[in-house]
């Protein structure tokens, strides 16, 4: 009975959108914030109820499927709007709603006094709605609808401060780059519909299971196309360029959309189509390679940034790269575990960064921060927890998830791959140290500090505790079926080649190196705050400039050309020509209205004569 009402999860945030959007025009900020946060909070409560329902069932039967209505049917293909809640989507739903709720609360204080307060919360609620549709969808088409919806909300919120040109440009960039990935996604859906005759995840898995001789090439093609979509949405190389610029949006938006939830949708999608990936083993190395390249590249770029939010953005790109590595190793549950852990600690880091920026009156330059640890203890302690989780220090969540990924990559792709992944982890520790240096050492900011209130710091404290405790999902340590993996119940990949002794030794070695690097680098960064970073790293290896040269400039030139010739001459010419023609016709016929009565009478008589004459002529009277 309870399980039938799965639609309530997305319906609640949608209700928040409608109430705030239609009724809230003249409401005070407080009421708008209460409605927006309340709708997400209620959805979170419902989600916890569903979790209890799932956990009360035996492991193999933990799925709630609801078909709402038939959306479209064409020939043999039918698309239903249907929701599916299984452990995989349950994990995502909890991440989305838990972080969404905390970030709504945080935003209520952070956005106070902003003229776009209501618009902000409407967009944020709309985002949560679309994200839930994406996550709960039981077929590719409905997922795609949610996928595009979150892209729209991302665009709207990146460009939230639309009076700034850079914000509008960043929003557009995010939208356009995502279009490239979405094109792949769309082709993948079409190919899947053609090849499998269904777009339902369950249906695709059933076709693959029933027909062991199903063409691996077709499965690989579908998987690759969907992977292109995932690369765009999850900001993986080479489509990562939009995410660092997306930091133009308000910081809570960066925390929710561009760190914790939307950008992880690609990983979620790949986990969703895991039966397909298992059928096309040739695709897995591609995914792993793209993930590893992104992880290393973004970690290096993060080192070169001065802006605290851009460091975090590149860090997000890098960490999602690790999730792709996990998926590419066939370790779906490890990837999802890293997704959950990363969502928590990166959301935390962004919120803490927002509190710092708020405290420093808009300052985002790491070079001008320092000694904040003593000044803002309510921010710095959760921040420290987030950094330790990000760097992967025991016993924080990141340690468990990253260790599982690295160990899995050693088993699947060998020592060289593992070494590269480990190098990425060391780089992670380096840029984590750079972030941490804002809180260490001498004071760097001259002005007065605005201390954050309890509404800002409460979510930080909650998330800080979660960053510490979420690691428990990775227990028991070094085991194939951790708590989280057992809950997810996904096919486990081939695991480690060596024994548990090797794994323990490796993990301990990694931990020692990471802690040493983190400690040493923090001291070093805190001492020499002003040292400039290499230009190559600072602009992300010039990828933006290469794209500008290869794509943006030629397209802009083409646009200018067609504006000058086609638009101005042909289109405008035709429109203006039509206007001129009717003007001339009007002027000619206006001459008949002379205002002279006798001329009217004459034309009346002439007309009468003509009519009578014609009538007589055709009736044969003459």
């Amino acid at each position: 009975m309870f399980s039938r009402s799965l639609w309530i999860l997305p319906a609640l945030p949608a209700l928040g959108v409608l109430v705030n959007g239609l009724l809230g025009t003249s409401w005070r900020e407080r009421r708008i914030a209460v409605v927006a946060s309340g709708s997400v909070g209620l959805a979170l409560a419902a989600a916890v109820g569903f979790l209890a329902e799932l956990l009360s069932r035996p492991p193999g039967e933990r799925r709630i499927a609801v078909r709402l209505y038939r959306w479209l049917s064409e020939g043999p293909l039918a698309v239903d709007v249907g929701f599916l809640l299984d452990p995989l989507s349950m994990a995502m739903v909890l991440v989305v709603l838990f972080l969404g709720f905390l970030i709504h609360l945080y935003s209520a204080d952070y956005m106070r006094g902003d003229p776009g307060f209501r618009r902000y919360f409407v967009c944020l609620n709309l985002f949560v709605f679309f994200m839930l549709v994406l996550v709960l969808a039981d077929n590719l088409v409905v997922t795609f609808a949610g996928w595009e919806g979150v892209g729209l909300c991302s665009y709207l919120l990146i460009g939230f401060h639309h009076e700034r040109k850079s914000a509008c440009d960043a929003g557009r960039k995010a939208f356009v780059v995502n279009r490239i990935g979405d094109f792949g996604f769309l082709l993948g859906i079409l190919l899947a519909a053609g090849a499998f005759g269904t777009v339902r995840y369950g249906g695709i898995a059933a076709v693959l299971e029933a027909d062991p001789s199903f063409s691996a090439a077709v499965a690989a093609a579908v998987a690759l196309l969907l992977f292109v979509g995932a690369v765009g949405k999850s900001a993986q190389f080479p489509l990562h360029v939009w995410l660092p610029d997306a930091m133009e949006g308000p910081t809570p938006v960066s925390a929710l959309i561009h760190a914790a939830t939307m950008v992880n949708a690609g990983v979620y999608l790949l986990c969703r189509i895991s039966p397909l990936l298992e059928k096309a083993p040739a695709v897995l190395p591609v995914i792993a390679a793209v993930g590893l390249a992104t992880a290393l590249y973004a970690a290096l770029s993060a080192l070169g940034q001065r802006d605290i939010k851009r460091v975090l953005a590149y860090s997000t790109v890098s960490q999602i790269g690790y999730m792709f590595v996990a998926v590419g190793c066939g370790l779906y549950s490890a990837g999802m575990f890293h997704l959950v852990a990363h969502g928590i600690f990166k959301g935390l880091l962004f919120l803490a960064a927002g509190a710092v920026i708020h405290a420093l009156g808009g300052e985002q330059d790491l070079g001008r921060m320092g000694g904040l640890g003593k000044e803002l203890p309510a921010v710095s302690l959760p921040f420290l927890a987030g950094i330790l989780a990000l760097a992967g220090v025991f016993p924080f969540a990141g340690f468990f998830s990253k260790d599982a990924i690295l160990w899995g990559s050693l088993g699947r792709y060998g020592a060289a791959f593992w070494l590269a992944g480990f190098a990425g982890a060391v780089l992670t520790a380096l840029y984590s140290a750079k972030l941490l240096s804002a809180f260490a050492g001498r004071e760097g900011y001259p002005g007065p500090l605005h201390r954050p209130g309890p509404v800002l710091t409460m979510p930080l404290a909650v998330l800080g505790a979660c960053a510490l405790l979420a690691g428990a999902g990775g227990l028991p340590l070094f085991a194939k079926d951790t708590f989280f993996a057992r809950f997810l119940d996904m096919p486990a990949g081939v695991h480690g080649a060596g024994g548990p002794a090797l794994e323990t030794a490796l993990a301990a070695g990694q931990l020692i190196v990471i802690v040493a690097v983190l400690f040493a680098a923090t001291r070093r960064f805190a001492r020499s705050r002003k040292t400039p970073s290499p230009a190559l790293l600072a602009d992300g290896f010039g990828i933006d400039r290469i794209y500008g040269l290869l794509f943006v400039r030629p397209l802009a030139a083409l646009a200018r050309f067609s504006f000058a010739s086609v638009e101005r001459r042909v289109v405008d010419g035709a429109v203006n020509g039509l206007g001129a023609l009717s003007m001339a016709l009007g002027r000619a016929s206006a001459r008949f209205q002379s205002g002279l009565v006798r001329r009217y009478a004459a034309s009346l008589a002439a007309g009468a004569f003509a009519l009578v004459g014609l009538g007589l002529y055709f009736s044969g009277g003459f």
Partner: protein
Amino acid sequence: MSLMAVVFTGILLFAVGAAGFVLRGNALVLLLCIEIMLNAVNLVLAGFSRYLYGTEGQVFIFVIMAAGAAAAAVGLAVVAALRRRLGTADMNRINVLKG
């Protein structure tokens, strides 16, 4: 007197009235021309009435005469008002109907 003679006289009278209406400029003359056209119609009605031994035509003549008299009364008032307002009764110079 044959019917044809009556009809042709009527046509001639109507043509004179119509031509006068189109060609002349003075508003009073235009009213007179309208009367001429009305009476041309009356003449034809009377002729047909006699030819067909009926009385309906003659009844219509009275109706038209009454309508014509009313039209003339209104027309004269219009002409007087035009003259007072625009200072002329020359229809060549009055084009207030022009939009």
